[in-house]
């Protein structure tokens, strides 16, 4: 049952690019190490104590050597930096049309939500050939989404949203690991990423229990936990309306402005008083503990779905 592996499977566009850099550096490293080791062995043999090797010309002209082995590594280092930094920068620029998938890590499981509705635990199904963007948060400690076949890694922090994106290329089943130590069952906090041809993926989405979309679930929560009592269409309370909020610029009572992104909405739900919108008093209670991180994601998805001038998209 032990398949023997030399190299990890390569299943994303990013993996190909990272491997190119990695193997170039392996070659360079092998060259340097062989050079140093070769020189040491050669000198140890040739200049062993009592050998008849010529030891004259022990001049002190060492500056040219020093400068060359300072300057050459410097140039190589800068080159390597730019190569790696360039790839890294791209890893933080998801294409605008990337498909979003929401991820919540908690001790010791991963929850995934597809906007179309399906929810998964520790398993993630993805279509091949399409840019995927994971929007990730944690419910307790720091976790880390690590998918070796995609050469991608990012920590998942409580109270924040981070994203990582990739384009799976090759259908297959790949490991998913938590790689930030998170307690007792850290080593078991993993799962399988299944990359499928797009048609199969569409089929998979449609199959099984038809689930309402994330935004629809968010709307249900919006009513159930009482958000609509103040933020709803006919609410008597003077609370900011949420249509068109997502992505807009919000003016706060302390004179600053923020972009209303996932993090802003999240913080508002669990810590309402921290950023009060100008013109409003802070009346909102904290919903910390009343809604879980994945429910907050659903609320965010709902608020996101509200177009300006609309009260309810559903």
């Amino acid at each position, binding site marked *: 049952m032990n398949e023997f592996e030399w190299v990890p499977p390569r299943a994303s566009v990013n993996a190909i690019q990272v491997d190119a850099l990695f193997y170039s550096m392996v070659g360079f490293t092998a060259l340097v190490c062989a050079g140093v080791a070769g020189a*040491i062995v050669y000198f140890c043999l040739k200049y062993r104590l009592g050998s*008849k090797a010529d030891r004259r010309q022990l001049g002190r002209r060492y500056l040219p050597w020093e400068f060359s082995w300072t300057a050459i590594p410097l140039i190589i280092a800068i080159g390597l930096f730019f190569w790696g930094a360039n790839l*890294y920068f791209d890893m933080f620029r998801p294409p605008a049309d990337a498909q979003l998938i929401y991820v919540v890590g908690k001790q010791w499981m991963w929850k995934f939500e597809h906007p179309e509705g399906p929810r998964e635990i520790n398993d993630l199904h993805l279509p091949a050939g399409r840019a995927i963007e994971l929007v990730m948060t944690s419910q307790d400690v720091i976790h880390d989404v690590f998918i070796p076949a995609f050469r991608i*890694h990012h920590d998942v922090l409580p109270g924040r949203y981070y994203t990582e994106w990739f384009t799976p290329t090759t259908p297959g089943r790949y490991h998913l690991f938590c790689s930030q130590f998170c307690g007792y069952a850290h080593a078991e906090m993993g799962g399988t990423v299944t990359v499928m041809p797009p048609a199969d993926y569409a089929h998979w989405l449609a199959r099984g229990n038809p689930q309402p979309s994330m935004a629809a679930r968010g709307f249900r929560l919006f009513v159930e936990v009482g958000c609509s009592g103040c933020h709803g269409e006919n609410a008597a309370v003077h609370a900011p309306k949420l249509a068109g909020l997502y992505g807009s610029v919000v003016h706060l009572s302390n004179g600053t402005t923020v972009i209303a992104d996932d993090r802003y909405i999240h913080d508002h739900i669990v810590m309402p008083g921290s950023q009060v919108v100008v013109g409003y008093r802070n009346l909102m209670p904290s919903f910390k503990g009343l809604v879980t991180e994945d429910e907050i994601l659903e609320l965010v998805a709902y608020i996101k779905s509200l177009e300006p001038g609309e009260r309810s998209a559903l």
Partner: protein
Amino acid sequence: MSVATSAPRNYLTEGTSIRSWLLTTDHKRIALLYLVTITAFFVVGAIAMALIRLELMVPNGTMINAEEYNKMFTMHGVVMVWFFLIPSIPTVLGNFLVPMMIGARDVAFPRLNLASWYVFVTGSLFTMAAMVLGGVDTGWTFYTPYSSLFSNGHVILTIVGVFIVGFASIFTGLNFIVTVHKLRAPGMTWFRLPLFIWATYATSLILVLATPVLAITLAAVALERLFHVGIFDPALGGDPLLFQHLFWFYSHPAVYIMILPGMGVVNEVICCFARKRIFGYEFVAFSSLAIAFLGFLVWGHHMFVAGQSIYSSMTFSILSYMVAIPSAIKVFNWTATLHKGSISLETPMLYLLGFVGLFTIGGMTGLFLASLAIDTHVHDTYFVIAHFHYIMVGGMVSAYLGGIHFWWPKISGRLYSEFWGRVAAGLLFLGFNLTFFPQFIVGYLGMPRRYHVYPPEFQVWNVLSSAGASILAVGYVLPLFYLGWSFFFGPEAGPNPWGATGLEWRTPSPPPRDNFDETPIVTEEAYAYAAPEVAGG
């Protein structure tokens, strides 16, 4: 020359009661106190390591359970980092050699030096108590909010211990800085100092400047754990990344605390056994200071995927590449020193040539981790484990053992078995590579660190690694026996068995209480080895 009449009084025979050892202010005796203490801790850390490697022989090991495994790697990390590696060369070889190499009678503050050992022992009692009472499972990095709010282990007790030993580090560092500045013998200018002194001086700067930051950070974790005030808790507005910044501000330079003194030992040993002056003295000297300085500018490379700003990551990445430059300078200069030398491969030389090779691999793989894109894949995998063990074990422990062998005749006044010494050095090199090289591969395959179970396709590499660890263990145990034997029964060494230069070799072995009968006067540069006779030239 110690002729076998009545043995001259030396620091070992100057009072033999327990009390005379426990109240000594002699830097050489304090070095021996530290030697015994950290050897004991090395054994503790190594036992934890043995359990880890045994558990990882099979993909679903059941020898120890998840909780025990988590406690084992935490114990291995905490003990090896703070109770062995950081004190190792500075407190043993540094304490023994710094005053002698600069021609001083003692360090500047001998009582502070003794206090350092007591503080160290006190701190270790706390941490050991935590281990005995049930252990701690956070990993040696104590990442918040896991350590501050979630872990059930004895986090506070462990942290208190580490906090206290920090002061031992600070005392040692402060002492060396002042000693090197103020107690050099007449004629011992900065550029006549042995390079071990430059390296130790650079290390001391890091000890003094970085350790307080760790102390206060750990205090904050303890505070958070006791009272949950939100310093690092996102739910209360805290920022877990603040912990990581402060922790790595110490713990990255701490890597240089571990490796710089090792580099210092390399200079001494290679010059001695190549019978040649170091190539490019000034460059090697200043590269030590450059490493100590740059080492403070790179901590963020531990946080490339932790949620740090990407612009910050880029800054830290390029600064990390800059550290490679002084490291490369050192490796090339050591190699060049061998050119046209007269080389003999005694035990210390074997250890230290091993160091150069392993450090080169460790340093080069550091470039992979400094590369943003590659780190995004190998972060927190066994690739990282392999990399830093190449530096800390392949590098530092080799240098430490090589240094112990090199100065053993000075410390004990006796010689050890050259045969067994070479065997141990060879086993260490072989065992080390077999243990850790497979970890580069399994790391790139994607095996995360701190996993006690793993997918079966990683097993081959783990079995190789565990097999290597058993060879490594033999390499560690052997010196305990033959050095122990030599201490009591070895043949007398005489003041300078290697024919080395350096002031420490100009005094009897073992040295008298005040090191020198009269203050030496220095008239020449370091490593003034006579030009080798050109046989038939």
